[in-house]
């Protein structure tokens, strides 16, 4: 379902002395439907970068990233938008919403964008919000004023509203209490059962061990860092 072929990424910081930072190179792996794969590696190894490259909000310099039959590296913006609407879901660490929009609508929004009737989308959203223990009195309110954990749960509800065939999860259990962590893990297990291909970043070892079938250590893809093309002494991200 998700396949990376010889993918590399560099950042060129034009306004900071044109520093060139190689983040990852030669990344190749495959995630099948119904499989959950964890990205591991020390902070700064490039886990989130790799995930954003797969989602397409980071540009990939070389290689191919295929989600189903779309190569996100080559795809036109409108193809990526269509892919994100129907196929590729992403639960980021931060909730980003239009101010003033009710929580219920925020969660139902991905379904509405797919043309699901308002009542059906709202019912699904209510179901998820209830499962994630967001009190009903908060549903008509905008999540912008919610606590960190509540926002994270709203974000997860939104990410799981549509049954995406491919799903990217960036620390979905961070800042959650035990009860809600359990709910999120069961949502992930259900997604696997229905055949979703999942790539996740989990700092919570127990959670990772429970839902993930494999681990991919991102630090093995780290090239030696360089500034203006010259290698700098130390190798980064070797701690696995």
């Amino acid at each position, binding site marked *: 379902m998700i396949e990376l072929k010889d993918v590399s990424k560099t*950042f060129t*910081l034009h*306004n900071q002395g044109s520093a060139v930072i190689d983040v990852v190179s030669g990344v190749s792996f495959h995630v099948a439907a119904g499989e959950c794969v964890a990205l591991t590696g020390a902070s700064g190894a490039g886990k989130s970068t790799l995930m954003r490259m797969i989602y*397409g909000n*980071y540009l990939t310099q070389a290689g191919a990233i295929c989600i189903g039959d779309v190569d996100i590296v080559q795809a036109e913006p409108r193809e990526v*938008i269509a892919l994100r609407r129907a196929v590729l879901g992403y639960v980021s660490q931060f909730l*980003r919403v239009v*101010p003033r929009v009710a929580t219920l609508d925020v969660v139902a929004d991905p379904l509405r964008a797919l043309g699901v009737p308002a009542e059906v989308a709202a019912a699904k959203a209510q179901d998820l919000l209830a499962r994630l223990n967001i009190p009903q009195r908060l549903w008509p309110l905008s999540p912008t004023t919610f606590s960190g954990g509540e926002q994270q749960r709203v974000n997860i509800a939104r990410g799981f509203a549509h049954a995406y065939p491919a799903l990217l999860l960036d620390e979905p259990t961070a800042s959650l209490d035990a009860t809600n962590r359990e709910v999120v893990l069961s949502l992930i297990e259900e997604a696997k059962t229905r055949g979703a291909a999942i790539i996740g970043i989990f700092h919570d070892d127990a959670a990772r061990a429970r839902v993930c079938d494999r681990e991919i250590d991102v630090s093995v893809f780290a090239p030696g860092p360089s500034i203006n093309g010259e290698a700098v002494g130390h190798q980064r991200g070797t701690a696995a």
Partner: protein
Amino acid sequence: MTPLLSVQGVTKRYGAQIGCADVSFDLYPGEVMGIVGESGSGKSTLLNCMAGHLAPDAGQVVFDTRADGPKDTVTMSEPERRMLGRTDWAFVHQHARDGLRMGVSAGGNVGERLMAVGARHYGDIRGKATDWLERVEIDAARVDDRPTTFSGGMQQRLQIARNLVTGPRRVFMDEPTGGLDVSVQARLLDLLRGLVRDMGLSAIIVTHDLAVVRLLADRLMVMKSGHVVEAGLTDQVLDDPQHAYSQLLVSSVLQV
């Protein structure tokens, strides 16, 4: 799929000064594109060239008309262009006063566009105008009041109602939230997003507010000194800008 709007090599000079140079892109039905850049980067010039308010020195602006399919709007006759301007096109000005008739009632402002496309039944026109005032969250009781008695945010919403009442397929917005206080801005953004999705509009939004484009636009074009320096998915351009100027623009935003 045929693009709704296909822009090829649009160039506009003001004497030796470049307004915009060799701009090309396609806009598909239902797509929202943002254009960002500093003041004087050519955003508004480009928008006015595409809207038919300015004649470009070179290039084509091909619009997929309902009647005859794709046609170059630069070379089409003035009556044809005006007809599109009244029906399938909408232009939301930065200053609501530029897009409204200040001496005519709110209902009249909305109704005028309906009458321009042939509506004659007073009751129908008034009913539709009232309906649109409510859609943009203006109290229907204000239908007979002049826009001069409205606040800036209300005038802007009235301008949007006036533009969208004929169900246009292509909407241009020049700094639609500029000059409004942030709470009104949020309300307007929410409204625009809902309208764009429910009506399947294709829109181009010129702004220098990156937060506005992140929320509204699917795609983003960054302009500097009349040239397009970067274009792509909105979140890609904002999260991983490639060009030196886009990097500067993104890194200059103040965090709240």
